[in-house]
Structure formats: C-alpha cells, structure tokens
C-alpha cells in the first residue's frame, strides 16, 4: 500500500511535526497495511527518532569491540556489566541530557542524573558512584554562567538528595558549545553476579506492572526534541522539560532493590526517553512476545489524559516490570511500604503485538517487529576531512624566561583551573566508601564491605577530535585508561557518549566514523571493550555543529586498596620522575590556545604500543610499592601536571633539568606519559626496572620547599600557585 489514500497536506505536516520523513511514514503504512492513528503515529515517531533507534549510528557502533573475559553484559541492555571477582559485578553506563539542559539547566541536568541512575538500578545494582562530563560555551558568553550554575546545581541537587556520591567528571569551555551545551552523566553500580536483572518479558499471561510516580503531561515529545536541531525558536519548546523528583527516585531505588531480593521479577525496564512506549516495546521485543496494556489503569497525575499523552509522557521516576503472578501481593506490599504507585496495567501475550486499550476501546495495535526490526537504519554519506597538519615548533619561537608566568596563566584558565567549586557542591562522600575524592586522576570507591575498589574516569578532548578525529577517538579512550592506571587500578571496560552534530552532513558523519575507528583501535589494543553507551546527534544551533565529542567513561578494578595511588606529592626528599617519551608536541595544546590564542598544529598521535608498555610498567611499580604518588601527563603538559601534584600535596619541588627547548618540554602534550614520586631508597630499583622494560625515564627534581623552582629560570611560591588555581571559579 502507498500513501495515496491519505490527505497529503494535513497529514504531511502531522508527519513532519512528529519528526518522521515521508518515506518513513510510507514504511509505517506499508508495515501496518493501513494508516496509523494518531496514537500509533506518536509511538512510531518516538521509536524511530534518532535517540531511540540509533538509525544513523547503529551500523558504525557494531564495529566497536564489546567482549572480553570480564564482560558479562555488553551493549544492548539498560547498562553493561563486568565481572569484578568474588561473585561481584560492576554495572555502568553513560547518558546525555544535552538539549533539556540547555533549555532548563537545573532540571535538565537533574533529570539526566535520575535517568542514568534508573538504567543502573534496573539491572539489580545499587548505584555507588556518579560522574559527569560537561561542555559549556565561551565563559564570556552571556548564557554560560547561568548554564554552569544551573547544571552543577541540578546534578548536585539530584545526586545529593538520593544519596549517591558524585565522585568526579570533567568540565571544559569552548565556543563551539555556545548554543548547545553537553551534559553527560554516568553511573556505576555494584551487584551480585547471580542477581542481575534483564528486560526481556516472558511468560504468557504474566502481569505487566507499573511502579513509581504518576504519569503527567511532562516531556511529551522529549525524545523527538533530543533528535532535532536547535534554532532560535527552540526556547519556545519549553514545556517539554521535566522536573525531577529525587526523593521519589530514592524510594523507587530502595523498593526495587528490596523486591529484587525476592524471586518475583521476570523482567524490568525503566521508563526513560519515550516512557511507556519504549519500555513496553523493548520488553516485548527482547522477549519475542506481545504486550497488552489497559491505559485506563495507568496512574495519572492530570485529568483527562489521552492514550497519546500517556504513551509519550516522559514523567520521571517510573518503571515497568513483568512479575511472577504469585508474587503480586508481596510486590504490591513493598511498593506500598515505600509510598509508591503499584498498578497491574497489562499482561504478556503471544500476539507479538503491542495492543493498547483505554475506556474499553482499542487505541493501538502494532506488530512489535515493525517497530523494532523494521526501524529505519541509515548508512549516511560521509566525508573524512584530512587531519589538520602537524606543526613542528622550535625553541627560537619562545622566550624561556616566561615559563613560570605562563604556568600561572595556564593554571588559572577556566579549562585548567581547579574544579573544586563544582565538586564541593556535590556530596562526594555519602555511602562512606569514597577512597579517592575528586581532584586526583580517577576517582576510587570501595566495593562496600570489601578491600577492593572501583576506579572511574571520564574524558574527551574535542579539540583533538576536531583536528584529527581518528587520533582524537583514540585519545579519549587512552586518556581514561591512563587515569585509571595512575590510580593503581587495572582498566577493564568503558562506556561512551557520542555527542556530535547533524549526521545528515557528510563531514559530521565523517567525524563520527573516524572517532569510532580510533576508539575501536584503542579498545582492541588495550583490551578495554565498550560495554554500554549512548549517542546524541543533532547537537547544532543555527547550523553550527559542536566539536565532535565522544566522551568516554572508563572503569577499572583495584584488587587491594592499599595499592591506591593519588596525585598529591607526599614527602620532602622524594624524587619526581617522568615516564615516557617527550617530543615537544605543542600542536593544539593548552599552551597554544591559552597563551597564544591559537588552535592549530595538529593532534598528537598516540602510539598504542607505548601506552600499553608504559601503563603496564606503572601498574607493576605500584604493585611492588615503588611509588608514592602518580599522575598522568595530560592537558597542559608536564609542568601543569607537576603544579597539580604540588598544589594537592602542598609540597614544593626543585626542578633540575636542562633542555634545548624548555617550552616544548614543559608544555608539550605528548602521550603515554606519567609523573611518579619515588622515595630515595627505591630510586635504583625504579631505574633498573625501567631499563629492563625499555621504558623511558627522566629525573625531574627533588620534592621539598614551598615553591616550584626551576634551575636557571626562577621560582614561584606554592601560595601563589594555589591562588591562581582556585580563583577563577570562585570569581565566576
């Protein structure tokens, strides 16, 4: 059947306002053998938008490595699961809430945290740590301040209230996010290996149960909005933003975990984007069954809600479950105890259709396979731009005596200054298992009741990705890997959040393809698979795309917490060494952008063999107790990393080094490098081990005093470093 029997003009705009293309609509008509009614059209639009269907990205995501000895569940469920020994597993995922946070920063960010928490506890895990990766526009842009304080407030407001520590994250500012900020939230949870819950519905006739908050008119079309580009009218689309209720989420978390101890739940799925629609269809599709729902039974917050509204509402703090019929009363009593809604709204059927009733009338009847398997999938055209050319800088271009002054400028810049102002607004210690607080490399939380810990880090350098998407993709993965190594943990797996512009533009699609290729190569080489993730496309305003931003969230395991490492310098008299090769790569460095306002020179290339070799060397030294502190060398280069170690340890250092090109050495951003603190009696062993492993090692200087002093250059007091490092956010 074709579209010939529908009224083109009215329906065309209806179809378009649902974010569907005309050929997609024809596909619906063909699949159903008739035209959809409005509710059905709404359901298709929710399922087939970019956010839920991954229609532009699916083909490419399949290329990522997703398996490994420790992977129990890779992509495809609410969150990924890895084995962390002793019958314990870690469950984690990252998700974006970019568009809502731009419209209403506090609530947008808050509900982003709420959503990712549900993804994790749906799997049977108790969330133990939150992380967040944020990108804002130019600090001087009139909107930035309001967005920063709203987003930080919202993340804290939700996480603090529910009582899950927010242990880290990252924040950067760049004009490419002026009209489109990024708010990516990650949650890590802990569960028992034999108590993981999945979303496949099963058991014909079993009850489908709705729990949590009532359904209101909030967020209708949220998922469609998340897949649409912004323009200046977007602020008119406001009412689609939802208000988060962390208190109810806390009750929902406790009630779900309590019920999970019983043998009651067959399948469970949170209601996230596209609410009841995507959750019911996902459960049916995974279980290869049908689901009948009586919408009159759905707990409603507003009067006279229609089937369309009920199916598309994105009210927060709700879950859908299939339970054992015999356990219905037990389950009900648990949810009543926690003052939450509990309603049987339907049953599992063998029709393989989603059938909706309301007020005794059928409202929709759609074969699940049309919604899921027949969902559009595109191999969009793409162009890979040539990477920006590498520039080789030379000593004569720089005036060496300004090094300490440049350092002060760099560490007081919004992109390198202390983030304390942010993390002090997050409760990062609740649950009393935080071992490494924000401000070090990876955050570390203890697995409750044990002596092992989970290390977590999120990272991405969009400038690197913009100038060389392949190396940039590699870099984001490797940067988290290095942070985890530096904390003393064995890196295990990652989640990702792919934030890009409009995929219908071939250059943007090219960035996506290349970032995936880089990520994949790094993951394969490092045995560091992708176990979950999220894609956010159409991050554009008025046709201006954001920089490609594939944020990576890495997780590692510290088997013995006494091996945990932090970045703060510990003792006077110890020696600081640099591990890894330095080649004065200043291209697209923070030095160039902050001191010279330049964005060029190419992305540093990453030698994965060196990464692996140096990382293994560090872990080996840690397990032999050779090191007192460790910091990876990242943004800003060696001298910024040294300053960070001094500031957090409140220790000075006497740097004793001779180089032809000091700027290149101190501010270059060559990869695969770490700074390590070693006590005098371990120096020899370190040097011997390094030469055995063929790892490059260089003595930087001796710890002590109240300043950073560099032979032949001068010195700068610790107190001045601290002032410069902390002032920007406090004055923002």
């Amino acid at each position, binding site marked *: 059947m074709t579209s010939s029997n529908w009224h083109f003009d009215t329906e065309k705009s209806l179809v378009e306002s649902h974010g569907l293309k005309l050929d997609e609509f024809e596909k619906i008509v063909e699949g159903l053998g008739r035209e959809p009614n409005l509710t059905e059209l709404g359901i298709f639009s929710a399922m087939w938008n970019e956010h839920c269907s991954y229609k532009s990205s699916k083909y490419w995501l399949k290329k990522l490595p997703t398996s490994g000895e420790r992977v129990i569940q890779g992509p495809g469920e609410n969150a990924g699961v890895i084995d962390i020994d002793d019958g314990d597993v870690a469950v984690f995922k990252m998700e974006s809430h970019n568009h809502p946070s731009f419209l209403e920063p506090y609530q947008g960010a808050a509900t982003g945290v709420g959503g990712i928490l549900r993804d994790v506890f749906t799997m049977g895990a108790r969330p133990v740590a939150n992380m967040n990766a944020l990108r804002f526009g130019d600090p001087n842009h009139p909107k930035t301040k309001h967005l920063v304080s709203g987003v930080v407030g919202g993340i804290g407001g939700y996480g603090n209230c529910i009582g899950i520590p927010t242990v880290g994250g990252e924040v950067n500012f760049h004009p490419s996010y002026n009209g489109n900020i990024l708010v990516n939230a990650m949650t890590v949870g802990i569960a028992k290996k034999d108590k993981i819950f999945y979303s496949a519905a099963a058991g014909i006739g079993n009850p489908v149960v709705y729990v949590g908050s009532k359904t209101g008119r909030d967020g209708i079309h949220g998922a469609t909005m998340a897949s649409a580009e912004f323009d200046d009218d977007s602020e008119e689309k406001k009412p689609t933003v939802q208000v988060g209720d962390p208190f109810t989420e806390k*009750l929902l978390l406790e009630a779900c975990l309590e019920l999970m101890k019983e043998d009651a739940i067959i399948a469970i799925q949170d209601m996230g984007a596209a609410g009841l629609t995507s959750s019911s269809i996902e459960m049916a599709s995974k279980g290869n069954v049908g689901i009948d729902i009586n919408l009159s039974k759905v707990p409603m917050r507003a009067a006279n809600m229609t089937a369309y509204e009920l199916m598309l509402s994105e009210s927060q703090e709700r879950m859908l479950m299939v339970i054992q019929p015999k356990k219905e009363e037990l389950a009900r009593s648990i949810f009543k105890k926690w003052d939450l809604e509990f309603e049987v709204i339907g049953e599992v059927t063998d029709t393989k259709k989603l059938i909706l009733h309301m007020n005794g009338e059928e409202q929709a009847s759609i074969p699940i396979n049309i919604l899921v398997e027949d969902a559009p999938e595109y191999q969009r055209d793409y162009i890979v731009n040539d990477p920006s050319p590498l520039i080789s800088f030379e000593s004569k271009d720089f005036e060496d005596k300004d090094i300490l002054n440049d350092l002060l400028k760099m560490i007081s810049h919004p992109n390198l200054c202390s983030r304390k102002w942010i993390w002090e607004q997050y409760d990062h210690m609740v649950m009393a298992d935080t071992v490494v607080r924000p401000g070090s490399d990876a955050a570390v939380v203890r697995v409750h009741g044990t002596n092992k810990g989970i290390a977590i880090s999120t990272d991405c350098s969009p400038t690197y990705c913009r100038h060389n998407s392949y190396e940039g993709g590699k870099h984001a993965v490797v940067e988290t890997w290095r942070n985890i190594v530096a904390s003393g943990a064995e890196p295990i797996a990652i989640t990702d959040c792919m934030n890009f512009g409009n995929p219908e533009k071939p250059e943007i699609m090219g960035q996506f393809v290349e970032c995936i290729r880089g990520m994949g190569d790094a993951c394969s080489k490092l045995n560091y698979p992708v176990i979950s993730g999220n894609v956010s496309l159409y991050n554009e305003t008025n046709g201006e795309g954001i920089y490609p931003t594939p944020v990576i969230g890495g997780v590692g395991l510290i088997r013995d917490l006494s091996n945990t490492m932090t970045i703060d310098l510990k003792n006077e008299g110890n020696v600081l060494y640099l591990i890894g090769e330095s080649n004065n790569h200043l291209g697209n460095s923070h030095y160039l952008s902050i001191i010279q306002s330049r964005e060029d020179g190419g992305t540093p290339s990453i030698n994965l063999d060196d990464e692996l070799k140096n990382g293994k060397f560090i872990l080996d030294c840690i397990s032999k107790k050779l090191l007192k502190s460790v910091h990876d060398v990242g943004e800003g280069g060696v001298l910024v990393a040294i300053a960070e170690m001094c500031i957090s340890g409140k220790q000075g250092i006497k740097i004793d080094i001779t180089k032809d090109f000091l700027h290149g050495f101190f501010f270059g951003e060559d990869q695969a490098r770490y700074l390590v603190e070693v006590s005098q009696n371990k120096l020899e062993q370190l040097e011997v081990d390094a030469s055995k492993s063929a790892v490059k090692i260089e003595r930087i200087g001796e710890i002590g005093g109240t300043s950073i002093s560099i032979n032949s250059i001068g010195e700068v007091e610790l107190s001045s470093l601290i002032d410069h490092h902390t002032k920007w956010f406090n004055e923002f």
Partner: protein
Amino acid sequence: MKTHVIVFPGSNCDRDVAVAIQNIIGSSPEMVWHKDSTINQSDLIVVPGGFSYGDYLRCGAMASTSPIMKSVIENANKGVPVMGICNGFQILIESGLLQGALMRNSSLSFICRDIIIKPTNTKTIFTNKSTISKMPIAHNEGNYFANSNQIKEIEDNDQIAFQYCDENGDINAHSNPNGSINNIAGVFNKSKNVLGMMPHPERAAESIHGCDDGRNIFESLLS
C-alpha cells in the same frame, strides 16, 4: 551497648552510621523504620543524615512528625542519649528537642568538604574524648540560627557542642563554612543527653576516609 538508628524515607547516611557504630562500638544497631512507633530500651538512638522527605518544605520538618519521633522524644526525656547528624540535627530541631533553626548556607550552595571543629564542652557523654577534629560536612542548610535570648541561654547552659575553627583551633569568620551564628556546628539540649551536629563523624571513622577523628564521639559514648 544497644543502639538504634532511625530510618526515614530519604535517609541516606543510615547505613554509613550503622557501619561506624558496628566498627567502633562493636555491635550492630537495630535499624528502626519511621512508621514503627516504639523503641523500648536503648543506650543510643541515632537520627542519621540524608534528605528525609526530600528536604521538601523545610529540612527535617516532615520527618519530625513521623510516628517514631514520639518515642524518640520520650526516650530523650528519660535521659537516653540521642544523636542527630546533619539531617538528623535538622529533625531534632524541628521536633523541639534542640533549640534554634538551621537555615540555607550563606553561600546558598551545597557544601561538601572537610572542616575542623573544636569541642566547646568536653564534659558530656558525647564529647569526653573530643579534641580538635577534622571531618566532612555535606549540607545545604547548616547555617545555625538562634535569636539573642536563645543564644544567651545556650551559652549560659554550656549547650554549645562544637564550633567551626581553623587548624590552630581559632574560631573566626574564615573558618565558618556556612554562616552559622558564633560558628556553631553542634548543640546539646539542656541536660546534654541530646546532641545535634552538622558534621559527619561517620565519614571520618576509618583509615580509607583519610581521617578518623570522627571516632572519638562514638568512643566517648563507650566510656
């Protein structure tokens, strides 16, 4: 020692304090759901931190009307030690067991960081082992307020438990994290068997916390 920890909907430091009690006092507390109505025999009742009822309306207000609070008040009046930490402090204030009020931090933002406190009265069951201690705060509404008559009364009766100070024990504006009047971080009732404090001793109770100064409050109770 028989101990009890009250659990309200939204409490989130209940487990943390239970772990600290188990580790320091040596026996695990009984967790009491707020809808239960009586605590029969107790040597210590802890009202833990968190966001009871989401901190909606006013921190601690709704929890203070929960059924269990009648029994907590009766026990307190009988002389049973009762300790409120953070949100628990707010609840004890709202229930009338302690004087004053806890308002929004003067910075208007949530603050989570280490602070230092000095015990003002070390002759009580909670503070007989206390010295200048470092431990975290994590709150939005910890700005202690009492009008001048109340302050005088509290001071005259030695009811100030802790004050925020610096490394040297100096109590000054610089060491006041939230705007509390007279740097007050914790107070007692008149008979000193009820303590409310904003800092979290249970988060400074073992070596992985980086500091275990919080232990001395629980250790005081043992002696």
